[in-house]
């Protein structure tokens, strides 16, 4: 994951997003190397405590910096970010590792058979590939608590469904393009549903309500119906102790 100085590094672009935000764009593709540069600048900016900083929103290929224009200015923010960028190259932070027990197929994963058919794989092989890969959270978005995870094995890559579902249940584990995600709330959605996890990615009764953040790592662990039901019952009874299997590593 560590980039070396020998790799080409196109200069990032500073783009305007009004007078209360700017975008630092590192590239225009879904590429972990680009995302790592985004994450590293975000980490550095958060650590530096920029005056007037409101939020830092990393995406796959850019960092949006929200700031309070009554406290600071575009010029001050940009200058500070350019300084930080010159200094970042240090050890990237390795995010928390989460393991999500997942019940694949059946009513929980109504698209598993279809994905198998379209990829020419057996349903068992689809599960094996999806659960056998470790993912990184490249960005949060679309709804509170939803992480865009990747990169999935190339054998599983499919475009989004041509007919998006009106209602996708919370906890649905889904794939589209080269990414995977867990729907944190019930919503419409066009991704292919492989299974479901009982882990609540957004829960107002928990502090903080959102479980994941960009930079975290995720694995899906196939479980049977009994294990799924047991964890779901525990979660619904208000058990908020679900924890990552590895803490963040800032060493």
């Amino acid at each position, binding site marked *: 994951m560590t980039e070396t100085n020998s790799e080409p590094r196109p200069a990032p672009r500073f*783009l305007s997003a009004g007078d209360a935000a700017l975008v630092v764009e590192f590239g225009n593709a879904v590429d972990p190397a680009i995302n790592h540069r985004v994450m590293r600048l975000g980490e550095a900016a958060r650590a530096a405590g920029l005056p007037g900083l409101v939020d830092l929103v990393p995406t796959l290929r850019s960092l949006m910096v929200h700031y309070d224009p009554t406290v600071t200015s575009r010029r001050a923010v940009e200058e500070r970010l350019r300084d930080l960028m010159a200094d970042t190259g240090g050890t990237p932070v390795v995010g928390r590792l989460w393991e999500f027990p997942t019940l694949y197929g059946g009513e929980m994963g109504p698209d598993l058979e279809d994905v198998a058919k379209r990829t020419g794989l057996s349903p068992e092989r689809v599960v094996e590939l999806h659960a056998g890969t470790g993912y990184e959270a490249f960005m949060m978005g679309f709804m509170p608590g939803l992480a865009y995870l990747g990169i999935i094995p190339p054998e599983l890559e499919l475009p989004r469904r041509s007919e998006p579902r009106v209602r996708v249940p919370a906890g649905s584990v889904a794939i589209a393009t080269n990414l995977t995600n867990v729907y944190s709330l019930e919503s419409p959605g066009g991704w292919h549903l492989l299974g479901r996890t009982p882990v609540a990615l957004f829960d107002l009764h928990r502090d903080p309500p959102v479980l994941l953040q960009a930079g975290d790592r995720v694995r899906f662990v196939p479980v049977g119906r009994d294990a799924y039901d047991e964890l779901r019952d525990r979660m619904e009874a208000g058990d908020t102790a679900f924890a990552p299997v590895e803490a963040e590593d800032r060493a």
Partner: protein
Amino acid sequence: MSGLRIVSAGFAPTLQDHGRPHVQHLGVPPAGALDPVALRIANALVGNPADTAVIELRVMGPTVEVETGSVRVALVGTDAPVEILGDRKVEAPSHQSILLSRGRRFRVGSLSDTGVAYLAVQGGFDLEPVYGSLSTYTRAKIGGLDGRALRDGDLLPLNRGEADDRAELRCADRSWRRDNGPVRVVLGPQDDYFTADSTAAFFASEYRVTREADRMGMRLDGPVLAHAKGHDIVSDGIATGAIQVPGNGRPIVLLADHQTTGGYPKLGTVVSADVPRLGRLRPGDALRFARVEVEEAEAARRVLEERIDRIVERFGPAEPWLDEDALYRRNLVSGIVEPG
């Protein structure tokens, strides 16, 4: 339980404060008042800190009953009055604080002159904040009362059981509501996704707010914009006021409840000084856009801040709407009867 009873909700009012713009990195939309200027003035009139949650009204206001000792309220953002119901209906003007005692019913009628108005209550609401804010974001059931718009019969718990003893204030300067020059826009982040002709037409033409307008955004009717290099981008961050243009070329201005990231190119962003004006627009209203640089946008925001400070400093004494019941109660409690 005591507080403010929503006898009849009107058009889906929500609680809003400054929102939660600091947790967009978790995918949580900022939410917050569509018109932060009116929010600030309403709170100042009742003596609240600027970011206290208030009731955001759209289209049609509620009927409310006071189910606590007394409350001090202020309606800001509309010329519609506060109708105080009783044997004899009395109208108290908007843009001033009003003291109302237990059992009083009041009503805000139809809002025909604005997209949003605010009803502030001294002391604010005794509800649990989410990420530091009471702002309601209904799509994820966050904030406010159970994460939803207010409904008939709701009881809003208050932080104060009695309004304090102070003079009522009036905001005489309403000029801030009538700003109607072009809405200023900084180009970017994806202005390079549009043809030069399209961008020129955007700034040369009149647009109208369509009926597809809510707290998330407003779709505009006017010249269709042509994309120069497709209408899909790899998702990036969204700022409030962003002018997003999907494949059909019809611009959508994104407001407080916008998603935190999105995959449509954004031609420009309405400057922060003009975002409050967007909230005041209603379907059918016309607007024009003017291109400015970031430095001009920053200067415009400074001007706005100074203007609001001045408006608040110049609050004067209010017209005498006297709630005789409340005065009588207070005199009994304090034992002081002022000469009439």
